[in-house]
Each structure stands twice: as C-alpha cells, then as structure tokens.
C-alpha cells in the first residue's frame, strides 16, 4: 500500500523556501543592536515552521539544524540576546544551509556537509555563549503586557476544511491548551458527513473548549497562532465582558464563502493583529511568485476585468448577429458602429490578456540585496543598493531571461565599479558607494538602468586593450560609445587581477547576446570618477512584435521593426559584385551584403532586377545586411506564433503570424537569414573554386 507523501513534501519544501526568502529579506534589513519585535517574530515563525515540517517529513538534519537557529531567535525575541552583526551573518549563512538541505531533500543529491557543519558549529558556539545582557528592547512590552488572567476562557474553534492539509493538527493544539490548565473540549458533530460522503483530509468537526486556570489571552493566542487564517476562532473570557477576539481571516474567496462567517465584533487590538497577519501573508505571496514556476499568479482584478470585457464582447456579437439577420443598406451605419465596438473590445481584450503575463520587475530585483550584501563582505566594500521602479511590469518570459544578465551587471558594478572605501575617501567621495537599479517604461519598451557612483570606465585602458587585441587601430578616432562597446566583445577584460567575482572577461558578450536575443539592446554611459550606467532596453513582451510587412513575389513576410535601420531604393552604381555570387551595396562608408529574399526562400519575385525592388537595411547579431524585397506594405503589431511548435524549425524564420485577411505570414529571423546568406555564399565560393 503506497501513500503519496510526495504532494505534502513538495508543499512543505515550497513553503519552507518561501519562509527562507522571508527570513533572508528581514535579516538583510535588520540592524545590529536593533531587535524589532515584528522582524524577529517573522524570522522566528519561518524557522519554526521549517523545523516542525522537516521533523514531520523525517528530515532530521534540517530540523536539528533549524532547532538551534530557532533557539537563538527565541532568545533574541525574548530580549535575552542582543542582535549582533555576527548573529545576522550567521543567520544568513544558516538560511543558505537550510536552503541547500531542502534542495538536497527535494532533488535527492548530496549537500555540502562541511559547510553545514561549519555553520552549525558557529550556531552552537553562539548558543553556548551566555546570552548578553538582556536588551529591554521592543520585544519586551508585548510579552510583558499580558492581560490579567481570567478565571477561564471559552473558545469556539471552527477549522476551515483545508486546515488539516496544511499540517495543523487539532490534537496538538488542544494538548497545548490542556498543558496550561484544565481543558474540556466538546465536539460539534453537525458538520460531520457519513463516512461514505466524507473527504477524509478535510476538517469537518467544530469544537467548543472550556479552559480553566490562570491562563492569559496571549498564551491562548500563541497556541492558535499557527492556524490564523485557517479557522474561525472566538475566545471569550469566562465571567469577562464580551468576545475579545473574533477572527474570520480569509485565505481565498471560496474559503470565505464556505466558512459561513460569524458576525465580527473586533476590539482594536484584534484589528492590529489582523493587519500584521495580512502583511505576513502578503509577504508570503510576494515571495512565492519569485520562484520560477510554470504557473503565474494573477490578481483577481485582472481576471474580473477580463470577464467584463468578454461580457461586452458577447453583447457586441449578439448585436451584430441581430443586425445580420435582416440586414438592409440603411443599417450600414449601425454595422460600422458595431464593428468599431468589436475592434475596441478585441483590442482591450488583447491588452488585458497580455497584462496577465506581466509581473513587476521586483521579482528579478529581489535577489540583489542579498547578493550585494555578500559581495560587500567578500570585497570589503561599503555599498548601498537603491532600487526604484520595482513595480514596473514586464512579461514573465522576458523576466526569466533577463535575470542572469542583470546579475552579471550588478556584480560588475560592485566589483569593478565601486571603489574600496579608502580609494573613495581619497577621491573625496563618501565611504559608501551606491548601486542604483531603476526600471521604467518608455514607449513600448522597458528600460532597466544599473548605475553606480564608482570610478567609471577607463576609456584609455579599454581602447589600449582593444588595440592590443586588434579590435581597433591606434589612429582610429572613436566615440565613447564605440569604445565602451568593446566591453561586449568575447573575452574582453581590462581587470588586472582576476577575482572569483569577475574579471575573466567572460560574460559581457553573453550579457549582450542574451539581451539581443530578447529583441533588446544595451547602452553604456560613463563619466570618469563619477560612475557608469548600463541601460538595458527590452520589449515589453515577446508575444507581440511591431513588424514591417514586406512582399516578395506573392508572399508576405514580416521584418521586426526593431531590426530595421532604413529602407531605400537601390542605385545600381552602388552595387559591387564580388567573387562568386555575393553582392555588396555601398551605403555611405559601409558595404552591406545584399540578401535577395526570393533567393533565400526559393520564391518567384516580381523582378530579379535590383533597381525594381527595395532594399531594407537591417541589423542582427551585430551585423548589417540589405534585404531585397519587392514592396513595403503596412506596419502593424503581430502576434507571434511559434513555427517550431506548429510545424518545425526553419532557418531564417523565427515564427509566423496570421494577418487580418487570414493568410499566414512568416516572420524573418534577421540573425538567421544573415548567417544563411553567409553560408550560401561560402557554398557558392567553394563551388566556384
């Protein structure tokens, strides 16, 4: 008999990873000596859940490890131990260890035991050292201001159906209550179905509990702390005034509907509790989406907007349908209105559907505080990381692909950009450098800026290196932009010392390639002594592109507008035929290879004379070329359909789309077609030889 524990395990691991994200972000904000009660509480909670869950699933190494962390946190929470930088660093290392152990448990691979043992030893050492003088910190008042114990309490406890699935157990809760005083639970069987109709993992019993003895409200709250949001709970002092706490926290719309909420009469203190609870849940939600899931979390408002639009679409459709039933020419105006309405609906629907794929860029940014913190420690630098525009939305796919290039650029800014504190002071700057991440929308693009106030790029050194590598000549008069562009050449590095952080010259070319592959671009600006700014420009989405429709013979192709530099009529005098079949076009000071699209795709053109066609100058993979087409048609936004999924991969074609008249048009892959033409001419050359 096999029991599928995997589903629970996966949930546990996912939630634990979220907990670790919360721990990490709180720890990074924590300042030595300042133990904010809520911050510590958040970390403690996360650690506590991980400990409990891992013990349940038999990951004893994780639970033992987390236990030590939890004990230390508990001491801090109780104000018995001060928060030191050492403790914060140790906790951060612990977060890494637990994350590794969880990953190990999930994937079944061996973890770095040495590192875990080292951190554990550090924790044990700290635990072994007597807690420092208690800080009468903010943690104090909350625990000390216990309400005077009543003679007893009446607790009405109604678990929501999913409560047991989340690992909560009423037996355990009641055992804790029974440990405090005399407890008597009366079960309410009203919700209990017949065994045959029962969903066995769902909670269907309710309880009324009487707890007598010198028990404070806070003690009871603590017991039920873990099921907040998973149950309906009312705690009343026996012989006291009225209900002190009535909670109907809502996890989701469906649960709320199922929960049959009781009237709420909440004391101000209760509201405050709710707020912090909500905030915690908000944190959880935020961090949950940060992992690369194949699913996407969509705000209910976006879904509602879609439903509204679909409603309008249905109305428009029925209006048009009615019009069509007995159509006469005097109704043409109404038909036009209806079609205009339909167009508006469709456009809005498209915009709304696209917005579902949009996520705030904070998902890509939120890894940087930790990274900068760690790098600062390693490189002995002082850096403040500023982030702005985190709410700027970006397509999920673009977001996933931009993560690594961003890491590389931020790492470079920290390693190469910002100087060491003594150098900064000597240069008359403040000791602490600033790295600024900024994101904003501009036109149909999103711009991400990574700027630092460091030393700036060394123009001369880059140029010298470029000359040394034969990328430039010493006599060349190059602009700053052209010189900085050498940074993106493969293997280009000006770092004197190769560190383990950066300087191997591997990466900037990859950064540029990744960004270009997304249809974006990267620019560099730098002022000596004042720092550098890398600006990444990305399309908002990969699903729609602005295209230029061109005609070749009877076929329509789409050239991405972003790749087009200009279009021109061919002047025969500027055409040079070189060896084999290759033709070059002299455009100002450059020579461009001419690619006859009809040739590349084996079509019959209107004319094979160059002067009868038009030359579209395009750039892809850093190379320019002139595409010969018969005619330029309209420019329009097209929805990209994958050719690979629907047919097969075709070299020189990046996808397809369906045009307004229902015909399929292929989207030209500029990089691919340039490469194809190179290969073609090589073949021609070798054939000629």
């Amino acid at each position, binding site marked *: 008999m096999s*029991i599928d524990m995997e589903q629970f395990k996966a949930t546990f691991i996912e939630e634990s990873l979220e907990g670790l994200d919360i721990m990490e972000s709180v720890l990074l904000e924590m300042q030595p000596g300042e133990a904010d009660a809520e911050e510590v509480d958040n970390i403690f909670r996360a650690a506590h859940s991980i400990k409990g869950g891992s013990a349940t699933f038999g990951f004893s190494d994780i639970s033992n490890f987390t236990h030590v962390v939890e004990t230390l946190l508990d001491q801090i929470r109780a104000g018995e131990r001060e928060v030191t930088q050492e403790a914060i660093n140790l906790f951060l290392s612990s977060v890494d260890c637990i994350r590794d152990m969880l990953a190990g448990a999930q994937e079944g691979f061996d973890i770095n035991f040495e590192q875990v043992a080292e951190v554990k030893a550090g924790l044990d050492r700290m635990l072994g050292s007597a807690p420092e003088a208690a800080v009468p910190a903010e943690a104090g008042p909350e625990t000390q201001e216990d309400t005077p114990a009543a003679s007893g309490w009446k607790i009405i406890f109604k678990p929501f159906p999913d409560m047991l699935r989340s690992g909560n157990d009423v037996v355990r809760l009641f055992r804790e209550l029974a440990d405090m005083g005399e407890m008597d639970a009366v079960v309410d069987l009203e919700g209990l179905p017949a065994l045959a109709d*029962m969903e066995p993992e769902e909670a269907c*019993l309710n309880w009324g509990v009487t707890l007598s003895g010198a028990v404070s409200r806070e003690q009871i709250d603590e017991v039920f702390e873990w099921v907040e949001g998973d149950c309906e709970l009312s705690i009343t002092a026996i012989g006291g005034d009225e209900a002190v706490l009535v909670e109907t926290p809502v996890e989701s719309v469906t649960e709320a509907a199922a929960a049959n909420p009781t009237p709420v009469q909440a004391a101000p203190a209760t509201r405050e509790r709710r707020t912090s609870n909500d905030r915690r849940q908000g944190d959880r939600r935020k961090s949950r989406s940060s992992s690369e899931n194949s699913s996407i979390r969509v705000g209910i408002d976006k879904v509602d907007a879609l439903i509204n639009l679909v409603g309008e679409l249905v109305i428009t459709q029925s209006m048009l349908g009615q019009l069509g039933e007995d159509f006469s020419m005097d109704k043409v105006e109404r038909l036009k209105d209806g079609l205009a309405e339909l167009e508006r609906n469709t456009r809005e629907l498209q915009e709304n559907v696209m917005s579902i794929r949009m996520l705030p860029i904070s998902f890509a940014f939120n890894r940087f505080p930790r990274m900068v913190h760690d790098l600062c420690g390693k490189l002995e630098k002082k850096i403040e990381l500023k982030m702005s525009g985190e709410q700027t939305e970006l397509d999920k796919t673009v977001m996933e692909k931009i993560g690594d290039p961003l890491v590389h650029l931020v790492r470079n800014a920290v390693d190469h950009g910002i100087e060491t504190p003594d150098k900064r002071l000597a240069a008359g700057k403040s000791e602490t450098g600033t790295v600024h991440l900024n994101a904003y929308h501009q036109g149909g693009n999103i711009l991400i800026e990574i700027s630092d106030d460091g030393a700036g790029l060394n123009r001369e050194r880059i140029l010298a290196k470029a000359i040394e590598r034969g990328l430039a000549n010493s006599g060349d008069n190059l602009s700053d932009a052209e010189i900085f562009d050498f940074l993106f050449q493969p293997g280009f590095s000006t770092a004197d010392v190769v560190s383990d952080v950066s300087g191997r010259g591997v990466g900037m070319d990859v950064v540029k390639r990744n960004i270009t592959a997304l249809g974006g671009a990267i620019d560099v600006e730098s002022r000596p002594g004042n720092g550098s700014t890398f600006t990444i420009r990305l399309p908002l989405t990969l699903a729609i592109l602005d295209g230029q429709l061109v005609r070749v013979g009877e076929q329509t192709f789409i050239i991405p507008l972003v790749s087009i530099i200009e279009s021109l009529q061919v002047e025969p005098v500027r055409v040079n035929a070189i060896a084999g079949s290759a033709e070059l076009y002299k455009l100002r000071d450059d020579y461009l290879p001419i690619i006859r699209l009809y040739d590349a795709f084996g079509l019959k053109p209107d004319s094979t004379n160059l002067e009868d066609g038009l030359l579209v100058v395009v750039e892809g993979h850093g190379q320019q070329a002139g595409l010969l087409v018969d005619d330029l048609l309209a420019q329009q936004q097209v929805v990209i359909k994958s050719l690979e999924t629907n047919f097969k991969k075709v070299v020189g074609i990046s996808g397809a789309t369906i045009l307004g008249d229902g015909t399929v048009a292929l989207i030209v892959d500029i990089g691919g077609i340039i490469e194809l033409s190179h290969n073609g001419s090589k073949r021609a050359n070798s054939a000629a030889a």
Partner: protein
Amino acid sequence: MVIHEWDKWVSDKTSNSEAETVSHIVCDEMLDISVVGELRVLLLEALAAKQSVVLDGSAVERADTAALQVLTAFFQDARSQDIVVQWSSASEALIHSAELLGIADILDLKAKAA
C-alpha cells in the same frame, strides 16, 4: 506510517469461527492524515460487510485529527446501522488524543481508559 497490516488482516480475517460474523481491523502505529484515505476505505468495507467490527488500537503511537475524525464518522455510521464496534485494545496515545478532542465517548474509548 503504513497500515499494511490491515490488508493482511482484512484478507486473513477468516482464520477462526468468528470469521463469518466479525471483521478485525488492526491499526498501525501512525494513525494520521497520510493514511486516512486508506483507513476510510477499510472502514467502509467493514460497514458494507454488515458484521460486527473489532478494532485493535494497541499499536497506535500517534493519532491525529484527520484519522480520529474518520473513526468518529465510522462509529456514528455503525451505530445508525446497528453494527457493533468494539476495541480489543487501545493505546494510551490513542485514548488521550480522543479525549483531547472530546470524542472518547463517541469512539467508545472512555471505558478503556478507566
């Protein structure tokens, strides 16, 4: 966490003269949410057999809410169908958990504790 013995018991329950009239069910040490699906099926089979049921809870080391809830539904159903359910024995852990939830009476575990 496995309750494999139940299978054995259910299939072996013909070993004596009681076989025609009594269903035996032995609970394994972990009586928790991970096994409630199976537990429910076994108890439903026992109900369908329309025979007296003898439960053995002596090995139970942990009983959680989900499992106790299933047992509660089973006892309620058995009573309404006039099926006699008895415990041959029950562990302290099982009895204590049922008491905490206020269902020891319903599960007929109060007497065992005494």
